[in-house]
């Protein structure tokens, strides 16, 4: 079984937007793989990201730090990270760390895509 499964796809609603679908455990071990995926998209100059947390069973500060670490670069290039698939377990952690103020969270991919268009 994979510890973390990362699916990177173009959004069906807007091919300029990249969707990362995460499944499994995001911790200090598996975050390296995720950061690798992030780097590939940055190198391809793709900076509008939607991260789907719906399949994540576990996240630690290593995973959360990877979102914080890449945000400034995305925003400097006109992009952003929006989150979908929020679970109560992860929302509790987001609130504790003050992430709700920094990141936008949407109920669906369609809503997140619309928010990018309006941006």
């Amino acid at each position, binding site marked *: 079984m994979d510890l973390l499964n990362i699916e990177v796809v173009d959004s069906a609603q807007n091919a300029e937007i990249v969707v990362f679908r995460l499944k499994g455990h995001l*911790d200090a071990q598996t975050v390296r793989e995720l950061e690798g995926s992030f780097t590939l998209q940055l190198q391809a100059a793709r900076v509008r990201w939607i991260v789907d947390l719906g399949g994540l069973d576990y996240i*630690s500060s290593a995973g959360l730090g990877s979102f914080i670490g890449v945000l400034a670069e995305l925003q400097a290039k006109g992009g952003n990270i929006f989150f979908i698939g929020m679970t109560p377990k992860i929302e509790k952690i987001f609130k504790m760390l003050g992430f709700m103020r*920094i990141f936008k969270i949407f109920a669906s991919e369609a809503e997140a895509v619309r928010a990018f268009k309006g941006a």
Partner: protein
Amino acid sequence: MSAAEQLVLAPETESPHSGEAFELEVLAADGAGDVDESFGGEAALQPSAGMVSPAKIGPFKAGLWRGKVTLTGPGATHLRISSLGGGKASGDLLFKVRDDKPAAKPPFNAACPGCGLTLEIQAPDVYRCHRCGEIYFVDRWAHSISLKPRPPEELLDAAATSRVSLSFPADVNLLRAVRTFLVAVLNENGYQQEMINDLEIAADEAVTNVVEHAYGYDNGKTVFVELRLDKSGVQVKVKDHGPAFDPLQGEVVNLDQHIAARRRGGLGLHLMQSLMDRLEYRREDGFNVLTLTKHGEPR
């Protein structure tokens, strides 16, 4: 023939080694010293020093009981025996418990006398098995001594705590396995799901810090984790023998500065502080010891 008045202890040796079982015969005798063959009751054993296992023996058959008994020492102990139930028979014998064998070097393995589950032991102490509930004492020679049916009063408080410890190489590839183990132990002991989630993350953060900062990803080094579970909550001690470092003195996270500096780290301490009721750091015997405490009753 009159009822039993004395219980006569006849051990295979009067100087057993601490923690090692020896044969004991007990005879029920009447006032004249004749065996009371009608005696079929049970009797309690109580040492004047150290511990005895089992603490209750019987039933006697035709006035005789024979079986294995363990004493802990070192030194002299009067082993008192008294009949339970109707009779008033009693007796005692002086033992000289020896402790002249070399002690085991911690950490060592010791098996639960109830179910055989092997644990890695850091120090001699009273343990409650998280699998079968057996309460037992592990001595410094790695003997596991059952404290059934009832441990001495002064040990009951300590035994209300269940302890589990593990050690593993400093490797982030083992984080998932360590979390799985921790969650399984907490689940088996009936703590609430949200409390388990909080402890899972906080312990992960503490272990990750050790692997990354104390040991610099050197998987030849060892991380030690000890769990103490009781009815008021859970304590997780994460220990390393890296250079003295107090992780609680880390900077307060300012998210905006973090983002501007494109920093990834530093959130772990903030999470541990938010998720736990108490964090405490100590430098102990060359170890950094970070203790995470979370209050909450098991079901």
